[in-house]
């Protein structure tokens, strides 16, 4: 069954026959995937199925060894490291399970980072970051160091940072795996909110209840697409 965006929609992300291996261990084998504006796609699969590699390839963090990746109209094969960084800080949001806030920067500056890297003045970026933190309920934690936050707070700060530039597509890798159900729900609601303005969300998860919130599920097994289904 071939599912995906309707023919009148320009896909924000298009993977075509992507393969990648770490040393001699294949992680992705000929994976194809498209994501349309406003769509929530859940990529599921067991540990080692290639989910995280798929996200890293799709977000331009990793160059695949074969296949083509089109992200927001750019063929990533022809985009150098600098341009990919510009793409990350201006039009993409990324949320990972661990290691994402810079430990030496206060939470406010962490959230302001994509804007300051994009050339905003510190004052303007910090004002926007304070607003973004207020939206995720972390106003009181603005001056705290990331190490002082709980897991849920750190994840909400990461979401605030990912969304501060109003990205056109957000990638989230197991964003609630280390959170309690209430905290997890808060983070998922924040992420899902991006679709209201036409942005897409690619959600990597091994949790079926999280995947059930998506419009479409793509299940990986040993680096290949095993199953693809429209959920809503």
């Amino acid at each position, binding site marked *: 069954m071939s599912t995906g965006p309707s023919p009148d929609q320009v896909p924000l992300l298009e993977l075509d026959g992507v393969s990648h291996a770490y040393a001699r261990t294949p992680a992705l084998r000929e994976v194809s995937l498209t994501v349309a504006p406003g769509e929530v796609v859940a990529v599921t699969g067991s540990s080692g199925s290639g989910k995280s590699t798929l996200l890293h390839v799709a977000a331009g963090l990793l160059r695949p060894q074969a296949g083509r990746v089109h992200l927001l109209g750019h063929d990533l094969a022809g985009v150098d490291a600098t341009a990919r960084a510009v793409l990350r800080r201006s039009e993409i949001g990324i949320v990972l399970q661990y*290691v994402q806030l810079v430990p030496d*920067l206060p939470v406010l500056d962490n959230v302001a980072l994509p804007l300051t890297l994009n050339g905003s003045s510190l004052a303007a970026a910090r004002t926007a970051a304070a607003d973004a933190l207020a939206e995720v309920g972390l106003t009181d934690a603005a001056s705290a160091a990331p190490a002082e936050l709980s897991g849920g707070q750190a994840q909400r700060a990461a979401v605030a940072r990912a969304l501060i530039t109003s990205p056109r597509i957000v990638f989230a890798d197991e964003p609630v795996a280390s959170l309690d159900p209430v905290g997890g729900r808060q983070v998922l609601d924040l992420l899902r909110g991006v679709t209201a303005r036409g942005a897409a969300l690619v959600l990597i998860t091994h949790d079926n209840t999280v995947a059930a919130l998506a419009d479409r599920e793509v299940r990986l097994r040993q680096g290949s697409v095993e199953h693809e289904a429209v959920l809503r």
Partner: protein
Amino acid sequence: MTATAPTPLAARPLPAEVVRELARLRSSADHLRARATAAAAAGIGVALLMAVSVAAIPNANDPDVYQLSAAQPGLAPYLSQSGLRPGAVMAALLLVLPFAALAVQALRVGSLALHRQAGLLALAGATPADLRQMRVARTRSAFLRGGLYAAPAYLVLWLLLGLALPPGTRLLPAPQWWLPLAWAVVLAVLAGVGALLGVRTPLTGDNEEDGVSAALVRLGARSGRPVRLWWAVASGVAAALVVSYGIRWGSGSDYSLPLLLLLLGAAVLLAATCAALLLARWAASSPVGRQTRRVRSARQLRRGDAAVAMLAGAQRRANPVAAGTVGAVLFVCGLSFGVEAVLVTSMFTATYGYGTGDLLFYIGGAAVAATVAVVGALVALLALALSLSDHLLATRRSVAAVAALGLEPRRLLGVQRRALTDTAVPAVVSGSLVGGLLYQWVYVLEHLADVGIYSAGVLAASVLAGVLIALACRLVVVLLAGRVRAAAALEHLRTP
């Protein structure tokens, strides 16, 4: 389906305030890195100012190379005699090497955290150029701060080694009107070197092929760049040597002879440093080196505390650049000890005899040269201790895990002692043997002296140097004991 034009992906340089903010020193490792780098830069600056000050001591018009400087009375003969002055300049320049090794090592303090931070910044959208800009800002400011201390430190040294000493024994000339000018040049040079090191120290996010993804995983990647940097410096000196020789040959005069000798000495020293570095790298990676290490490790495991030997070996292998760089500098210091051993032996055994004044002159010269080599060795050892301390900080979780397995603090200190001595002692002893035995052949052939006596002298000096450096290693470990115990705290088992 209509396609929309993709947004242009042009990167602009970061505003200065953003660079300053992101490059600001925050963690204790950041402060330690900046302070150690500044101290090393100050050492380089002082050594350069000393070299320039000595080289600029004016000569009389007499072409005799043994003429005394009339402009700076009261100086020791090693400085006042124009023929000996290049040796003093050389000694000052020799001091640049250990301070450079210290600077290279200081820049690596907290490298694991730096790699991680760079990976996270890249994830947030920092371009390779942005990351370079931040690194350059950090290293250049640390070098500049060190450079600012150079002239005051020179004045303090002049008070101690110049003004405070009796006339005829002063080891530093009085500061001249042009010292601020030389200081400004040294500052500019240090700022340039700082920027160069900032550009050339690769961090996560630089390597396009690896991508940010791999960089986030491989946080502890090591760099082989310092070796190339040493080669670049050696090539520069060699080029200067060729040019100066060309000038001398062209002019047909002996005017540039001291400069020629100076550059020749610098080129030999740097070539020796590069060779020792490459040898250390080869020993670490070649099949022969690996086999030798296996045999040596097996012997050590049989002979002493197996756990200590194994952990110390792993610790040294974890940071081959520090071991290689410091080992190379200590090897050069060893070369100096060996040469001095031959000279001292000749003073006490030469059949043609020295007068009392001559003996004092030569012993004084050897003592000054040995002091320079000892200072160099101590600075190099400090660089190694810095690397070790940083390694403990970076690997505190595994150190705590080893402690949790039952390795008591006493044996953990033994691991550090072993890691230090296994690097420092062979480097100094082999340098002393190579320098001494090579120079003794020249000396014996020239003076038809007894080779046995000179070999015994070199051997004794090498053993003495080995014992002294081993004692210095023990002292360093005593000073590091607090850090070792802190790294072994079991609470680190819960930190990522």
